């Protein structure tokens, strides 16, 4: 974990007497994963180059070439044409562009289209966008119920669509859940949507580094991906947008990206994004198998130490992201567990990160039918390209004692 040593959890503890953590263990790759050395090198080199990719002179042409070569690599990796790659500032912007933009364009075509269908377990970037459309733009949010595993059944989507198909503007169902790792049957869901000719968007941010993700093969209208979950930099992502879909822009300006997204292209980040995508593609299914084996061992070690721990989400297998393990620890508060593990040099998460730092009961677990206590007492461990057996063993060595202590604190 060489790229982690220089940036431990508490940088530059000038006066801190705390002994340095033995060896930091990073089990939060779903939040962000270390940048790959080759992506870092590409980005650093590109930062020294001159040129706006929209300029017509030699410097602009050089920058544009880097962008277009990167676009081709990314398109090829995700079953899209180059023209179907719309660069954005990341996953949140891509989700906003897909959900708001397609809602607006579909409604402009037919004012009767006011329904937005999404599961209650979506990432906040979709969840809050749909809520905003309902509060400010006359949308009717139709929250699709998920099964206890977190999965949406295609028949559940079909039933919701059939209630008033002509009124549906857009559907958004994530490819893989960011908290519990449940993989949705995206191709089947997209097919249901296609039968009704309704655009289907999927947030594939968590899936893109770990599973085969293809715009063409999935049949989706739009997919969200982002670089920093794959080994690229934070601040660059893309909406893979099928030809023919023309969402109303969220950002207006020079129209750099297919006239649906404006803003000067971030050439160094785009180049590093492509390098990371290429590396992920080369790692391929072997890496997913390696992560799944590590993850299975992590689950086994946690269960051995804490027999009553509940694994949330789908059982290990094709229905679950290979790098994800998510538990509820009965009688514990998730934030106490996180703090105790943090003090032992182990980084994990209570769910999706919250800016203010207050632990909320996970809306994903609540949507899956868990009660509030189970939702509050949960932790996500997520593995990635730099994870090793020693990381899993380090967790297995302390999780029993940590859960025991957190239980005493919750009494």
């Amino acid at each position, binding site marked *: 974990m060489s790229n982690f040593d220089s940036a431990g959890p*508490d940088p530059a503890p*000038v006066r*801190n007497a705390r002994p340095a953590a033995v060896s930091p263990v990073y089990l939060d790759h779903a939040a962000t994963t270390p940048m790959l050395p080759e992506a870092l090198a590409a980005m650093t080199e590109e930062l020294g180059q001159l040129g706006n990719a929209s300029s017509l002179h030699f410097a602009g042409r050089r920058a544009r070439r880097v962008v277009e070569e990167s676009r081709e690599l990314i398109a090829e990796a995700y079953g899209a044409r180059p023209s179907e790659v719309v660069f954005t500032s990341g996953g949140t912007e891509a989700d906003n562009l897909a959900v708001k933009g397609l809602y607006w364009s579909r409604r402009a075509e037919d004012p009767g289209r006011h329904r937005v269908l999404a599961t209650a377990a979506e990432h906040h970037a979709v969840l809050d966008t749909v809520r905003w459309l309902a509060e400010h733009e006359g949308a009717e949010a139709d929250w699709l119920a998920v099964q206890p595993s977190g999965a949406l059944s295609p028949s559940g989507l079909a039933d919701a669509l059939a209630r008033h198909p002509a009124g549906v503007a857009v559907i958004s169902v994530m490819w893989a859940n960011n908290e519990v790792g449940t993989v949705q049957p995206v191709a089947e869901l997209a097919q249901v949507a296609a039968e009704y000719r309704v655009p289907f968007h999927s947030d594939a941010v968590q899936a893109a580094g770990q599973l085969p993700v293809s715009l063409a093969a999935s049949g989706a209208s739009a997919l969200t991906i982002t670089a920093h979950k794959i080994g690229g930099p934070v601040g660059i992502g893309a909406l893979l947008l099928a030809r023919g879909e023309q969402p109303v822009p969220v950002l207006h300006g020079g129209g750099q990206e297919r006239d649906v997204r404006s803003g000067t292209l971030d050439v160094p980040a785009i180049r590093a994004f492509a390098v990371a995508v290429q590396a992920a593609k080369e790692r391929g299914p072997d890496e997913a198998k390696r992560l799944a084996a590590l993850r299975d061992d992590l689950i086994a070690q946690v269960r051995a130490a804490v027999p009553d721990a509940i694994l949330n989400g789908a059982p290990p297998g094709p229905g679950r992201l290979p790098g994800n393990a998510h538990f509820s620890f009965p009688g514990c508060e998730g934030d106490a567990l996180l*703090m105790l593990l943090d*003090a032992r040099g182990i980084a994990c998460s209570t769910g999706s990160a919250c800016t*203010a*730092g207050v632990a*909320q009961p996970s809306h994903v677990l609540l949507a899956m039918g868990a009660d509030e206590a189970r939702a509050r007492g949960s932790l996500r461990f997520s593995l990635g390209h730099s994870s090793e057996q020693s990381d899993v063993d380090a967790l297995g060595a302390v999780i029993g004692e940590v859960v025991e*202590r957190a239980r005493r*604190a919750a009494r």
Partner: protein
Amino acid sequence: MTTLRVLAAMSGGVDSAVAAARATEAGHEVTGVHLALSSNPSSYRTGARGCCTLEDARDARRAADVIGIPFYVWDMAERFRDDVVQDFVAEYARGNTPNPCLRCNEKIKFAAVLDRAVALGFDAVCTGHHARLEQVGGVAGGRRLTRSVDPAKDQSYVLAVLSGVQLSRAMFPIGDSTKDLVRKEAAERGLGVATKPDSHDICFIPDGNTRSFLRDRLGSAEGPIVEPDGTVVGSHDGTFGFTIGQRRGLGIDHPAADGRPRFVLSIEPVSRTVTVGPAEALDVTQIQAIRPVWSGCPAPGGPIDCLVQLRAHGEVHRAVCEPDGDVVQVSLREPARGIAPGQAAVFYDGDAVLGSATIARQSGVAATR
């Protein structure tokens, strides 16, 4: 010196930041925690929470960064609502004048937070209170709560409710410094909160309008304002708007017969009667206080001479205190004015706290009841 695992409660203010820095510099293993006390924690996402509070959380986090300690936010909103805010409202409904800061120390910082900290493996809770803990022999916990060296900022009054056991786990690193010195030190340490203004309001009433806060929760309930002889001189829309000794905001439009200012003498919530009268009718010499806590001495077996303080930042009075079971009879040497039930009577030996009790009843030379 023993290295302790210390949980530093960091409000986002300058005092708690310097306290955490000093505890760290003393060699302790310190972890910073900001307590989220909003009654609606979900508003953290929706933005309904006051921006100042989010700013406080950020200030606390930045101070922890500068000191170089881990930092977390603990959600104490439910406990705070139940034990401090609801108690505050209920006390006013009873005609009393509560001190929510005192209650927060008693029930949140040195109870809920301390208990959780100890269970999680911490040895002590550190705060930025202006008070000292002096090492003495033979007293519970071996330490005695003492006034800050800065009399204007001293907070021993709102900490005196803590038991010896609670104090044995407390750490007040800035009690031996004046506020000016604390600010100077914060600047030297590069803490951004060095010049942040002091907070004065009740934290859960950010607009400072206590009367409207209480009216929202208790509802308007009209009642008479009377003189001691029963003459009705006005009306009010809720006894919660008054505290004993209050002069302003009585809403009486004609002056007293003798032309002198009138003060609230008593509040009777059942009949919703507020009695007003002249200043000298506020004079009190006898106080009954209940639920005593003796942290600075063994519970006295008989009457003791001591000093007593009857409100936050109030003057001290010479008195004789005589515990009798769960009640302490306080006889003041000289009359004191504006003594309100619900406030604490804190007993001192010089600058050292002996104990504390809650004022339940008072009576005085002018026999107002």
